[in-house]
């Protein structure tokens, strides 16, 4: 796995901390998590981001030699949906938490409290890595991701509003996102069934 480039982690860290410190509740709650480590394993992009809680700040690293207290495994899509619909994404399997679930949800909660806009952050971050990972991003539907992230920026001023008008309405988009998740889940199930079928055939022995 390639480490996230310094530009991406720096941009993420700056944005996260700006928003965390702007929120009194989060700023007061964060020091209690000092020393704890959350890993975001972004599936499909082969990218890990490590969030280290430290005093009133969060440090974002592309690589870390220590062990995480918790890991959130999610596609960029799953990550977006976590911030959109709370636990919904978890129930639908778009995101998975391993390790200390309570901590992951606590830090995740603080990030949500601070109105961290994951869609925008990731879109911007992915823009930064585009030079290195263009081919991979295109495969992962990077263009779509950037467009839909822009669509979710309802209140970001004139420029984005005009951009957004070119894109599907948010209800439509939400419906489509659900469709994509359903398809993904179906494929997972189909895969599992195929594996079971193969296993059964192997048990039955050669015909």
């Amino acid at each position, binding site marked *: 796995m390639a480490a996230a480039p*310094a530009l991406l982690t*720096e941009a993420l860290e700056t944005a996260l901390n700006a928003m965390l410190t702007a929120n009194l509740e989060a700023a007061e709650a964060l020091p209690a998590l000092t*020393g704890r480590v959350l890993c975001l394993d972004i599936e499909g992009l082969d990218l890990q981001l490590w969030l280290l809680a430290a*005093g009133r700040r969060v*440090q974002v690293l592309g690589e870390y030699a*220590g062990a995480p207290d918790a890991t959130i495994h999610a596609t960029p899509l799953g990550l977006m949906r976590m911030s959109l619909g709370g636990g919904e994404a978890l129930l639908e399997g778009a995101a998975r938490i391993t390790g200390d679930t309570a901590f992951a949800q606590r830090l995740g909660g603080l990030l949500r409290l601070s109105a961290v806009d994951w869609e925008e952050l990731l879109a911007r971050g992915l823009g930064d890595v585009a030079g290195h990972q263009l081919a991979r991003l295109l495969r992962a539907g990077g263009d779509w991701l950037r467009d839909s992230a822009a669509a979710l920026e309802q209140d970001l001023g004139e420029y984005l509003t005009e951009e957004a008008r070119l894109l599907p309405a948010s209800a439509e988009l939400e419906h489509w996102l659900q469709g994509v998740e359903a398809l993904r889940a179906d494929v997972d199930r189909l895969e599992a069934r195929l594996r079971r079928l193969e296993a059964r055939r192997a048990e039955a022995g050669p015909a």
Partner: protein
Amino acid sequence: MAEQDTTHFGFQKVPVEEKARRVAGVFHRVADKYDLMNDLMSMGIHRLWKRVTVELAGVRPGDRVLDLAGGTGDLAARFAPQVGDSGLVVLSDINESMLREGRDRLIDEGLVRNTEFVQANAEALPFPDNSFDCITIGFGLRNVTRKERALAAMHRCLKPGGRLLVLEFSHPVNEPLSKVYDLYSFKLLPLMGRVVAGDEESYRYLAESIRVHPDQETLKGMMEQAGFERVEYFNLTGGIVAIHRGYKL
């Protein structure tokens, strides 16, 4: 002694014993505006340089890290969360004003559980042999009077397997960039020093001291001379800055 014992202070030659005093004067004067000036002078890029340095250090929980010439604590503030409660970060600077700025900043950020502060001269480190997993010196080595002694002291204090990272201004690797950089550092930099910090002379010194600092290959050689192995360097921003990394094996 027939040969006068002198060293560089920017482009001037000064007696060896005077350099430390003059450098101290510069940093006493700029301490409270140091972070702001760094942002202005490097257009914010120094944050990325420091981030890459910390990434190359690759510290892990439990490590003991010494940040020399740590100034306002940029590197130490990144290391502290990474080494965790079982680790230790010692922020050290020869200059009391700078060290106080760094200490206040780390305390303000709540990084108090695993940090210590030591005012020390890099040429004569007050630590036992083999006591750190990682030593960093960011934008500090060029201000040290006897660099060979400082490198030897760092080597002594590192544990076997430990690494030294030197983040320092270096020499641009291509000619056009080098021209622009000259113009920037000798005209614009002192001007910014005058306007923002009200102190043109100090910033002129900073620009000049960068020029007389050894280039990439020379510093690599000096580190090898001091006993470091597997020494390599990474040019950043076209060689305006370089990170040297060497191991004590």
